[in-house]
């Protein structure tokens, strides 16, 4: 498989999500969208325009919105809760009890995750959401990598019967995948072949992982890149295959190094196919204001850091 071409200046993931949701509105008549006064920020202003009667305003009150989604699902609707990732954390106990414990067919779509938030700063940059939502029984956790995948994941999320937490993203996002791209919940995809090491990434880090693979290639290192768009349930069989075939892994995520993609990958491999793993993520600290690429460099999650981690992982392989 050849490396996908990077196409600049495409939509942000939040805009791609909002457009996809709007396009799917007629096909899913039970779909309703819940907003806490930030439809312009989450992308669902597109749905508000196309389907105003199915856009429910909750005001700046996320806890009520989250649990009310449980009530809407209980009477047969497919509610999609939309807010920023940090405010999903604010209402996580409502997601736990009223969505997951009651096993509701309700969706949470979180914009503004991670350092990708940029200038709003540390208070707004959710670096804990993947870990927190992954820990809730029954919750599916998705983080698509580009606008094409976001549209596919939005459909898959609506077709799936059960609670889902999906990350979008604030900042403009490179288009990585073409029209032949496919998405399936629970499946990772090898998007660049390689033999020496595997970089497993999700969301905004997938583009950086591909850039890191290019850097490594210049040094004669063949890095495989896996787009792990579903963090839970994690694709254990693909991970085991990569561990066997490349002997070392790097995880890369715009999230705390604790409990997110890296945690999920380590748990899966420790049980089946242990191998050296290096973790690229924010090192158990809060973010700060700045542009996303500046922040990625400052906090050590840019392509350079992924490439360095890959070299470390390769050095740790058993001779």
């Amino acid at each position: 498989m050849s490396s996908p071409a990077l196409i600049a200046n495409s939509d942000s993931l939040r805009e791609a999500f909002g457009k996809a949701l709007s396009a799917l509105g007629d096909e899913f008549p039970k779909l309703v969208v819940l907003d806490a006064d930030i439809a312009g920020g989450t992308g669902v202003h597109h749905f508000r325009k196309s389907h105003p009667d199915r856009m429910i305003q909750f005001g700046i009150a996320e806890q009520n919105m989250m649990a009310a989604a449980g009530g809407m699902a209980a009477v047969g609707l497919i509610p999609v809760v939309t807010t920023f990732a940090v405010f999903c954390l604010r209402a996580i106990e409502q997601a736990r009890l009223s969505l997951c414990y009651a096993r509701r067919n309700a969706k949470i779509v979180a914009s503004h995750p991670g350092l990708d938030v940029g200038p709003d700063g540390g208070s707004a940059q959710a670096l804990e959401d993947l870990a927190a939502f992954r820990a809730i029984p029954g919750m599916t956790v998705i983080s698509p990598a580009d606008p094409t995948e976001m549209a596919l994941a939005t459909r898959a999320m609506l077709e799936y019967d059960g609670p889902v937490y999906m990350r979008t993203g604030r900042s403009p996002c490179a288009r990585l995948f073409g029209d032949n791209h496919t998405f399936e919940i629970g499946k990772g995809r090898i998007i660049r072949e390689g033999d020496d090491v595997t970089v497993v990434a999700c969301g905004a880090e997938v583009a950086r992982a591909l850039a890191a693979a290019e850097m490594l290639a210049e040094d004669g290192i063949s890095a495989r890149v896996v787009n792990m768009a579903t963090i839970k349930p994690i694709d254990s069989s693909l991970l085991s295959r990569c561990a066997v075939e490349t002997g070392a892994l790097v995880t890369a995520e715009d999230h705390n190094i604790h409990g997110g993609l890296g945690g999920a990958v380590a748990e899966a491999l420790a049980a089946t196919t242990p191998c050296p793993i290096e973790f690229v993520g924010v090192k158990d600290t809060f973010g700060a204001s700045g542009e996303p690429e500046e922040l990625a460099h400052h906090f050590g999650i840019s392509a350079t850091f992924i490439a360095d981690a890959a070299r470390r992982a390769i050095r740790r392989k058993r001779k």
Partner: protein
Amino acid sequence: MNQQLRTAPLDLAASDSLVEKLAEAARFIRCHSVASIFHAGSGHPGGALSSADLFACLYGAEMNVWPGAIHEPTRDRFVLSKGHAAPALYATGAHFGFCDAKAALSLRKLNSPFQGHPHVLDLPWVETSTGSLGQGMSVAVGMAIGLRLQKIPARVYTMLGDGELQEGEVWEAAMSAAHHKLDNLCAVIDYNKLQSDNCNDAIMRLEPLADKWRAFGWSVAEIDGHNIREILDHLRLAGATREKPSVLIAHTVKGKGVPYMENIPAWHGSVKLTPAQTGEALTALGASAEEIKGLMHV
């Protein structure tokens, strides 16, 4: 229009036989709740006893739901937002045929569907899972919006505790229900004035409570939560209220019917009842010797 309804003399239309039937249901709910908490070795008797008359009126007369209709889209929904009153909900279900009375005495035991707080996957007729205060109210709001959106004429009822009103989520939900003009929603507050550690006033003052709800845009009625005719009448008036959600602030007595528990905060919390305490409570509640035997020796 709403104010006129509220000030008009109540039409005490409920027949004597209905009131009698509901009083008997409430008595059963109290006895069964005490017995199940006795068998469990833990549980919250105070709030179960204070809410029994409200449960009897909701399930025995007001709500359009019965055991054969628990999956009917058009049924009325009840959400127990004060999930710790689960023993009273289970006793109510037992009395009206939603579940088996003897099975419901397995409260809080491993592998029992009658968990310490209601869980919809164990018991579909409890409608949703509760136990974290404030959330049931929001779920009820979501149900009311969802039913109206689908043009289903069902009503949604939710019961809240008074201490529960200290949760901010309740007021988020209250604001949203009024904003969305959810006249298919009726909240009932079991206002027994006591919470886990002490009386409401000592923990976190709630008054002026009716004014708060009015200010949030609700149609408000303060009622005697142990007067069956009054409960029935106000539930019916709530059903006739348009453009606003309704709240019944039901003044109740915590531990109602068991003299040694009445108005004593210690009986709110999760307590272990001795056989002697249980026997005394059941006797005070009017259970016959045979009934006491049946409830205590299973």
